[in-house]
């Protein structure tokens, strides 16, 4: 990896973390609208995977993948507009928080609360590439919780049958809302399921952005060359509650402390400094830049109008 690439990865992770921290603060100040999902702890996954995509590839991220959305070109302004239910948000106030954040001009497909629904939709995108003979790949994400839904099995089986250029990232963050992994499944390594579908599966440290990037890039190149689907399991930890209202008292504090030491953003920062690739001055400049960008996005969103109530029935059907 070049130094430029490494600094780029760091920048996107820091921007994602800054967006997250400032949004959490906004909600704690009572300036939020509805619910809000922190992605804290998932930065290396969303940035490492998103960075590996080609410009024409299509991705369907979920509610803890802010880094991937921004890498696709979705601006913090449009994200904040959506979080605050404004007319300038991606869904024009139609859908909550990061739901409904899709934009085909950016090759982004939005998710719904039934998270595993993105699995077959992204598969369909991949199948359309085969149909048209286009060298494109589709990628999507699922958590350990959603992996218990039937769609996980249905979609991976179908992806294998059609040898689709399809990458599934499992973000195993140990908890489905309050339910720990050992109450969700007997086999904690979801990667092992790949064998059941006759496709390769690989496990990666979900807090190591370079490792996530490298494995995803390999999977994408393989799929683009006609090698078929791949399952990547990235292990991480959800560092805050399921959503902003949830203090996650059910998570042992020592478990959080252990994962805090492995924080994906801060450990990468320390690694770059230790390797003399960057100094503290440069790091501080990047952090400052991120704070300015997100501050601007919040101001923009807060100054944006709410959608006109009279528009409520508009846009249910495509013309």
């Amino acid at each position: 990896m070049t130094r430029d690439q490494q600094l780029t990865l760091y920048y996107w992770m820091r921007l994602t973390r800054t967006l997250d921290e400032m949004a959490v603060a906004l909600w704690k100040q009572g300036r939020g609208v509805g619910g809000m999902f922190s992605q804290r702890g998932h930065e290396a996954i969303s940035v490492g995977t998103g960075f590996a995509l080609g410009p024409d590839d299509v991705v369907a991220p979920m509610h803890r993948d802010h880094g991937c959305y921004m890498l696709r070109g979705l601006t913090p302004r449009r994200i904040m507009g959506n979080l605050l239910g404004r007319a300038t948000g991606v869904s024009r106030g139609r859908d909550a928080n990061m739901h409904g954040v899709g934009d085909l001009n950016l090759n982004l497909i939005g998710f719904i609360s039934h998270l595993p629904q993105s699995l077959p939709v992204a598969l369909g995108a991949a199948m359309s590439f085969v149909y048209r003979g286009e060298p494109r790949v589709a990628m999507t994400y699922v958590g350990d919780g959603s992996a218990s839904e039937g769609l996980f099995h249905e979609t991976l089986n179908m992806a294998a049958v059609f040898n689709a250029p399809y990458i599934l990232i499992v973000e195993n963050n140990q908890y489905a809302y309050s339910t720990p992994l050992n109450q969700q499944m007997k086999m904690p390594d979801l990667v092992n399921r790949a064998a059941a579908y006759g496709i390769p599966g690989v496990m990666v440290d979900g807090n190591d952005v370079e490792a996530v990037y490298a494995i995803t890039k390999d999977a994408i190149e393989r799929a683009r060359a006609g090698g078929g689907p791949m399952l990547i399991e990235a292990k991480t930890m959800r560092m805050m509650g399921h959503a902003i209202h949830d203090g996650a008292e059910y998570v042992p504090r020592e478990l959080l402390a252990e994962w805090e030491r492995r924080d994906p953003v801060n450990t990468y920062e320390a690694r770059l400094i230790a390797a003399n690739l960057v100094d503290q001055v440069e790091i501080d400049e990047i952090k400052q830049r991120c704070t300015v960008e997100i501050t601007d996005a919040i101001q923009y969103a807060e100054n944006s109008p709410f959608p006109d109530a009279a528009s409520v029935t508009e846009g249910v059907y495509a013309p």
Partner: protein
Amino acid sequence: MSTGSNFGFTDVEQIDDESRQLTYIAAISEAMREEMERDPNVLMMGEDIAGDFGGAFKVTKGFEKQFGARRVMNMPMCELAFVGAATGMALMGLRPVIEMQFADFITSAFDSIVQYAATNYYRWQGAVPWVIRAPSDGGLRSGPFHSQNPEAWFAHAPGLKVVTPATPADAKGLMLAAIRDNNPVIYFEAKPLYRSLKGYVPPGDYVVPIGQANLVRQGTDLSIITYGAQLREALVAADQLAAQGIQADVLDLRTVKPLDSEAILTTARKTGKVLVVHSATQLLGVGAEVASMIADQAFEWLDAPVRRLGGLDVPVPFSPPLEDAYRPSAAKIYTIAKELAAF
């Protein structure tokens, strides 16, 4: 009392003579074939639809030979996933036509339809132009899971369109409209009509716009509003009523979402007496919405309470006497219509 299944598993005939008398099922098949010839983005997907087999009802027999395996895709048995995949294809600009082997199995895909596809355009303006073909309706001694009429569930989901052709011509015209529509459309095809109803089908590019009802028969004494397989029953009943000197308007809704409110209110105001008929369960069915619309907007024209006739509030039973007791029929329509005319 009929005791056999007559929707048939034999090949769909391809008649292309001057008369253009086609069965209902041949009209569906012709519409899809012509649309695939016209638009390279149109593809077929479903269980058992490819190869020489050509689907449980043979609607797509010969399609793979003509269009190739790329455009006629057999699916594994996973309705939830393959409808979701169709949504992904549709977002990328393809126009999948999905065969549910029976309408009864559409529930396995419910999330993919009503949660994802139906809401998508409203949420982030990604259009989902697919069609689900759902072979529905009974009277065929096929039991609780091969006889259902679940159109009201889908009519209740914002973002979907629901069409219910009752004639071979409409089967073709609504299929072309459904494929060309930029929204998810559920196309309920009445399998009791498949091989038992023939009629003139216009050649070539024949589109019946979604949302337009059709006044099939004109009368002045009462209105029978219906759709799907019950149109044929209603027309038989209307003939019998005419023999008694009672003249019925018969309105075929053709589309249950969006409803053609203008046509519904026009016939209600014209005759002042309305009977709404459908094969689906009467309780909380499409007929309830039609009756409510008439009560709201045509009350002053009414000369009698709006009547409804639908299936009983029981699972569709198998044994012939039970199924006949469950289902609306020409005889039942006649009885209620006669009461209504005398009101």
